[in-house]
């Protein structure tokens, strides 16, 4: 019992409070998204989404309790097994799962259905933490870089086979954790440069301007730095590669399936076919934009309620918030998310062993990725990718997987004194 007292006192209640706040706000918004004035049902009515979400919330509390009373060493020990189980489940989903909207993403019996890809995230996170706890792992060495990449890529490949590219993309979030753990910065510089070139190449009609820009930047770098032959040649090669990349991009995009192409192009031209491809983004922006400073008031929104925004209770739940609570409401939620992320970074930093810290950063990575992409997508800053807003979006799998993900870390954090490990 003394031990129990010990860790309960160390639980980070701030994180739990933010979690609870987000879940509650999310639940109210799910009700608003399905609310029908003409056939008003109680928020607790199990026939509508808000009632079902309440069941998910209730079961999430059970999960939290189970995590908190479990042995803290369990997660570390089970990490590989969980990783294996969920990979297996992802593998078999296409064969035993149930088809929804042309995709087979969930398995289960009757009404109890889960999406293995959702749960594979925390299993992968645990596995990464477990792997990196080994003292020899040094991410500046290519050997370990490859091994880490392998752990990440196995679920990505399996999920792509489903295919569910949106969920697969989330695994790139682990690079945030890898950045903290010492992955060389040049990779990130390279990735950011490529993203910038991609955006410019797709956004600028005439690629010649881009080529001119690249040449100018390379020449500047050459003249500002040391002028030895090797450096000049390598910089020139990088420049040539960048130019080739920008030209190849149009070709690559044209090879993508049409609906992926459209999602990307809508980003640069929102008025492109507002009733077709642009519909989601246009309607989403209309819903959020019509909220104004203080919003239309709870349950007074028209755009989400009357189905103008598709997927309003899941991926586009932020629209309901933006419409009914305006900029102030959006600010509160964005503030809560940022506070949560910063708090989690602080918690991760105070861990005494690498397992907990890596796992903590995995949680930060995944939440940050989801939060950023989801909201950016609803306001037209990012192509439409079907990923949920953590703790907010309707759905058992998503709520459970984020809850498990977060509370394993809270549990680990509360035992940070016992988990004295080797740090590097």
């Amino acid at each position, binding site marked *: 019992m003394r031990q129990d007292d010990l860790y309960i006192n160390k639980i980070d209640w701030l994180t739990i409070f933010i979690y609870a706040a987000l879940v509650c706000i999310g639940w109210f918004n799910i009700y608003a998204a399905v609310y*029908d*004035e*003409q056939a008003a049902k109680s928020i607790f009515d199990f026939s509508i989404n808000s009632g079902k979400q309440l069941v998910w919330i209730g079961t999430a509390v059970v999960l939290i309790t189970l995590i908190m009373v479990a042995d803290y060493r369990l997660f570390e020990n089970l990490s590989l097994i969980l990783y294996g189980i969920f990979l297996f489940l992802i593998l078999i989903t296409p064969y035993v799962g149930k088809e929804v909207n042309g995709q087979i993403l969930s398995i289960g019996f009757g009404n109890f259905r889960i999406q293995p890809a959702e749960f594979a995230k925390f299993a992968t996170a645990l596995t990464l933490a477990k792997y990196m706890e080994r003292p020899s792992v040094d991410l500046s060495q290519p050997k370990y870089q490859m091994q880490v990449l392998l752990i990440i890529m196995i679920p990505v490949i399996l999920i792509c086979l489903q295919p569910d590219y949106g969920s697969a993309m989330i695994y790139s979030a682990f690079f*945030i954790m890898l*950045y*903290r*753990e*010492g992955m060389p910065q040049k990779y990130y510089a390279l990735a950011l440069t490529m993203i910038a070139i991609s955006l410019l190449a797709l956004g600028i009609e005439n690629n010649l301007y881009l080529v001119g820009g690249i040449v100018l930047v390379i020449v500047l770098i050459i003249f500002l730095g040391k002028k030895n032959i090797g450096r000049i040649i390598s910089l020139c090669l990088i420049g040539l590669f960048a130019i080739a990349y920008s030209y190849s991009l149009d070709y690559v995009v044209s090879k993508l399936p049409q609906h992926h192409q459209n999602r990307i192009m809508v980003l640069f031209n929102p008025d492109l076919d507002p009733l077709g491809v642009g519909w989601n983004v246009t*309607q989403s*922006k*209309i*819903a*959020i*934009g*019509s*909220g*104004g*400073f203080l919003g239309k008031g709870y349950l007074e929104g*028209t*755009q989400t*309620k*009357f*189905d*103008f925004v598709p997927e309003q209770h899941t991926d586009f739940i932020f629209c309901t918030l*933006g*419409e009914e609570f*305006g*900029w102030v409401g*959006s*600010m509160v939620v*964005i*503030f809560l*998310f*940022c506070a949560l*992320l*910063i708090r989690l*970074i602080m918690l*991760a*930093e105070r861990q005494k062993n690498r397992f907990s810290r890596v796992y903590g950063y995995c949680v*930060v990575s995944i939440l*940050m990725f989801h*939060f*950023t992409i989801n*909201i*950016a997508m609803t*306001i037209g*800053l990012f192509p439409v990718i079907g990923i949920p807003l953590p703790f907010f979006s309707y759905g058992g799998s998503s709520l459970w997987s984020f809850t498990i993900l977060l509370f394993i870390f809270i549990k680990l954090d509360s035992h940070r004194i016992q988990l004295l490990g080797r740090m590097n």
Partner: protein
Amino acid sequence: MNEKRPIVLIIVVALIGVILLTKLFLIQVADDSFLKRAERNAVQRLVDHPYRGLIYDRTGKILVYNNPLFDLMIIPKEFSVKDTTRFCEIFNITKEHLIESYTAARKYSSVKPSPLIKQISTTEFAKIQDFLIDYPGLFVTTRSVRSYPQPVAANALGYIGEISGRQLERDTAKYYRQGDFVGLAGLEGFYEKELRGVKGVKYKMVNVRGVDKGSFKNGDYDTTSVAGINLTSTIDLELQRYGEMLMAGKVGSVVAIEPKTGEILAMISAPTYDPNLLTGSKFGTNYLALNRDDKLPLYNRPIMATYPPGSIFKIVQSLIGLQMGILTPNTTYACNRSLVACHNHPSPVNLFGAIRNSCNPYYHQAYRAMINREVSSNTFKDTKIGLDEWREKVLAFGLGGSLGLDMYNEKSGSIPSSSYYDRVYGEGRWKYSTIYSLSIGQGEMMVTPIQMANLAAIFANKGYYYPPHLIKAIDGDPNKIKSEFRTRKDVGVDAHHFDLIQDAMAEAIYGTAARAAIPDIKIAGKTGTAQNPHGEDHSVFVAFAPKDDPKIAIAVYVENAGWGGRAAASTASLMIEKYIRGEITRPALEEYVLAGKFM
């Protein structure tokens, strides 16, 4: 080496928050176009069109009403039918029609209503009404079209049609919208404001598929429509119908007025058309056809056609002469045919005889006495002063100026002034010999049939009139009509001067219009002939009856029918008998008029 990286990550998180909030601020607060687009998305403005006011005749019979037409609408998603054969039987449609309409409706929208059967009449609707409940996804919407139980008075009643772009521009109150129907002619046009009622507006919320999701803001912005105001016309439906029957096959006008009130009892424009032609969906094609017809059925002759008044004007001359003191009942002139042509009658004649015989030289001489009173020694100036003074007296009879009746496009006719002759002949270069035609109602003067009917009312009233009008009560209240219609206008001739005139008109019937005489009803009248340079003269007749207590004053114009004693006098006589007795005792005369074709 990685100590700074957590700080970098915290900065990144904060940066993401700032970027998202900035973008949100831009679309939520800085840009209100999204709010407008949201309202366009979800709020639908539905106009509730009020029932247009009805028009009754003076006896309470319906002239114009709204005929409800029912459209059977279908919502494909909710619609289900087990036995299509029975369904088709009940709704009296073919299976092909059902399949075709259903497919078209589905194609349009499975949740929004589309028409299945259009324009179901009231009787047909009664048959299907009870079956509607058996078929989900069906409902009925009503529309109404103007309808006329008796196809008469088309030009007086006018018609409604879609508002034109120009009218929309002129509508500064912004009441009308594209596609609204407005009164375009006749009473429909003049009383548009009364008849139209007040439109109601309902704001409805719709979801993305256009499905009704209830009222917007609890209906706080909704207004209910107010039905149009009913009008009571002065027209006697029976008399109007009878007059149109008599005028069938002829070109001309009949205007009958109740002298004591100025109420127009009948206003017939021939040829006319069935007002039901200009309603509903057939409006466009029918209007084009009527507009192209060279007999001009859309031309409202009683108020738009102008003719010289002819001999009838001699009565006005007599009255002005009497009032001026230039004429007395005993004033005698010789029928001097060297001045102006005349027909055979005893000569010389006194005033009574001049009216009875319609003596042209009498009025040539009498008019000279009125015009040239030697006010000025210069005969040109003298004529000018005389003409302008005389003209004022003529205008008081409601001639040469608009009577201001409740109908647009009324022509004023014209009584020439000195400035007119100055323009034509030059100042100081015309005198009595230039204008003498005016003495017998010829020459440069023009009047409309309605003005002539009003003239008959003045004779009947012995010197006054109420401006003729077609509506006697608005919303059942006679005090709501324009005050001008209730204001008596005196022509400036003393009542006792009319006694001789009335007697002469009563006597004249037996001289020039024996056909017009009616057994037991004393009628006073005067024939006229409006000269027609293009062919046979126009037959004109004005009259009132009964002479001692006038109930009706009438003017009849029949174009190309020769002198007034024939077609026009017979028609007027029948109209008077129809109105006063309610039946016709002279079927032979009726047949004679009906047989006349003067087109």
